[in-house]
């Protein structure tokens, strides 16, 4: 094999999990541009946005979740995230679901989905406590294989178990991160 693509300048050091010990197996999350993730979501037959408690910490994130929802992507609000939608009186398709339960359902090809119309093919994690999200993405990566379910993260963390993920963005780079989300939303 050898590294032909970038002559050795790329390095797995760029793929450091937000929790540094959270190492991956032979396969790991592909760092992806927001547009690329956006296109994946757009091309999905049944996409699902899964949001968690961290969208409440940060005004910008709840805004973006709603913006994604308004593009017609159904939302599963886990943990207390649902509060944000209630308080904002969001009238799009949003469901409260406990994340553990939800991931479990996603792994069942026969699951009917939140709307009774069937399971999802691309599930997007957003605003979920890092290590909890990581574990759920691991479950999807390892067991959501037939049919293939793509677990994707649009959090400000590198997620080794996601198919596609951003890198790690510190609070200093929050504006940059929100811009990436906007780019993603723009292609939906």
């Amino acid at each position, binding site marked *: 094999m050898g590294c032909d693509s970038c002559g050795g300048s790329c390095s797995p050091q760029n793929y450091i999990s937000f929790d540094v010990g959270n190492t991956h197996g*032979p396969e790991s999350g592909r760092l992806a541009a927001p547009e690329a993730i956006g296109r994946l979501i757009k091309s999905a037959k049944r996409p699902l946005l899964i949001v968690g408690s961290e969208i409440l910490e940060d005004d910008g994130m709840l805004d973006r979740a709603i913006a994604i929802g308004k593009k017609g992507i159904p939302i599963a609000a886990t943990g207390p995230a649902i*509060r944000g939608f209630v308080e904002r009186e969001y009238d799009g398709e949003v469901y409260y679901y406990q994340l*553990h339960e939800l991931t479990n359902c996603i792994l069942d090809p026969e699951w009917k989905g939140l709307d009774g119309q069937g399971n999802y093919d691309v599930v997007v994690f957003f605003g979920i406590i890092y290590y*909890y999200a990581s574990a759920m993405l691991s479950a999807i990566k*390892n067991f959501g*294989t037939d049919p293939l379910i793509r677990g994707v993260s649009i959090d400000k963390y590198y997620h080794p178990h996601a198919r596609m993920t951003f890198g790690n963005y510190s609070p200093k780079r929050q504006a940059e991160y929100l811009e990436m989300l906007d780019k993603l939303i723009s292609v939906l």
Partner: protein
Amino acid sequence: MEEIGGKFKIEGWENVQINIGKVEEEEEEWEPMGPYPMPKMADLRNWDYKLLNRYKPFYAPLCDVCALCTYGKCDLSGNKYGACGIRMDAMQGRIVLLACLVGASAHMAHGRHMIHDLEHRWGVDVPLDLGTEINVPAPLTQLITGIKPKSIRDFLPVLDYIEENIVQLADALHTGQEGSADDFESKALQMGMLDSLGKEVADMVQIAYYNMPHGESNQPFFEVGMGSIDTNKPTIIVIGHNAPPSFDIVDYLTEKGLEDEVELGGICCTSIDITRKYQKAKIASGLGRQLRVIRAGFADVIVIDEQCIRADILKQAKIVGSPVICTNDKAMHGLVDRTGDDQDEIIDDLVEGRVPGVVILDPFQVGKVAVEVARKMHPKRAKKEYILSDEAFKEYLESCTMCGSCTFACPQGLRIGGANKKALEGDLEPLIKMFDQCVGCGRCEQVCKKHIPIVDVMVKAARPVIEKEKGKMRAGRGPVRDTEIRQVGAPLVLGTIPGIIAPIGCGNYPNGTKDVYTIVDEFASRGYIVTLTGCMAIDCGFHLDDEGKSVYEKYPDDFDKGCVLNIGSCVANAHIHGAAIKVASIFARRQIRGNYDEIADYIINRVGACGVAWGAMSQKAASIATGFNRLGVPAVVGPHGVKYRRAFLGRRDLPERWKVYDTRNGEELYCEPCPEHLLVAAETIEECLPLMAKLCFRVADTSPGRMIKLTHYIDLSMKYLKIMPPDWHLYVRSETDLPLAKKEYYLQLLEEEQDWKIDWKTKKIISGPVKGVDPSFNPTLLERLLPEKR
């Protein structure tokens, strides 16, 4: 004929031993023997599969490879098979079994170790005298082994049974053997059951030997929290789970009249256990603050025994000049074994700093050494200040480059650099907040490129808070009394007590210790019985209400409505199982002897109990939860708990999973999905609270009971999540289940949102529920309990 202990020797018959009352088959017939005395790993597999088919194991691998044998490493990602033929799912089950093995072994080995330590002095014929209000002295022992113990001696075959079966299960971990995830889980459930039994033995042994409280209410108070330790006195900090060496310290202090001169503080379960007898001792903290207690320099000597001790204790203790005494062979840290050596020489070696620590394996040799070392070290150490000076604090803050390495190393992802910056600007709040959020691992320090002692920086910032961190906690009371069970039986069934909430386990909380307080206060104020053990019992103790009262002061410690009980240390968890078993035995008059599956079946269908291990961290927490699960008690873990890899999740959208038999006629019925899960992680406390309320539902709930449970479920959901729970209707079997105050509103919702048919005249539900209410419904999952099979 000469009598020695309980044995007789007959002259000339030296090879003949006569044991009185020891023969198993001749055990007093206190109850007919059920089908499974001392079950082996396949015996209860049928019960396990009942659970596993309903609560299918859900796996979130923490590692994509297996590296347990030299055939590997093997890439198992995508549910691949390894070189030995194991697949990712079975591998996860294997890791769960391994965790439960280590946890169960820790509890079990601790009990055995205690007997070995103490039998030399007091023999094994010390009676198990639990007073007049307890006639079911050891519910798990009686349930699982069929033995009703009267003295410590009676526990010996129980320990043999556990050890034999732990080793059998350890065999099953071998490369190339079991290939089924479900069978690994069945084995893990067996291990969890052995764990529960081992805990009961361990706690009963110490209750008997040390005459600890055995279920009395109104236990005395003692102080808990880092602020409770008076470091102006020579201070001993004891850490671990095996109390005898610490009791020797207590004895020495008492004998010498030093109780007020020397401060005895502790971390974790050993300290819980000594406060069950000696309330001058204080509990500095639970597991999560161990490193900070050490690094704050509290200890003039540190005495460790076993489990939940920092593995780098020597390195950390050296930083603050605390000598370390290891008192247990499981944790010897490379130190020289000085058991039996002249105690004054040992004291001298430690005080003069000739050695960083010693090993003393006889608990009865520890007291004097620990106390005298503390007294001699105190003046030496008092000259130093272990909390950073203002200048040093500022310098360290200034040196921080906000590189983020600490954040990457932090299990919580805390943005320490940002907090440092704020502190430098004069705002200590972020650092103070982190002091509680921090789980105390210290990984941040070793990756800091500027060598900032981050733990010390945080301690410095939080010092004013630490000094106020002080609360009152009640001594661990031990078992629940039979008389209490009799009293709560009806209220539990009628729902005036909506459930039993058991906060247990370690300190790996997602967002600090305050959550523990919230859980306890929320449920106690709603009339649930809240039974605490271990770190959660400690960590809710130093949070105070507006009146300055801790939950232990606010609520009584009876096993009754709206009470908060410190049951004891981790091993005392067994009494929570015990209470559930006693409900079956005493209230419902089920025969428990050798009858595990029937009792677990009773509990899962009737006893609305739910554990919460909000900071579940260790292998013991894994085996504890698994032991609760096999007995039919669900548990919620904090989000770090997903790293155990396995959950037991129900599927409320699949009615066929909720099949139950009616014992009256053997009919199969589909019931509401309760308890919905056996093991599930909540993301935050706001999600945890309604979830726990939901997990207290049981299919046999009476209407009044269901009504009250539903009230709390909806109320907690509205309060914390701002929504009606989307699944609340699943638990409505009839209009009589509906909370009275808003009955009409709920009927309307059911009609509009769920398409149920309502007769508005009578305000009755005509159709909609999964199942109606039938007061004489007698649910079971076990075919063997059905009429034709009985």
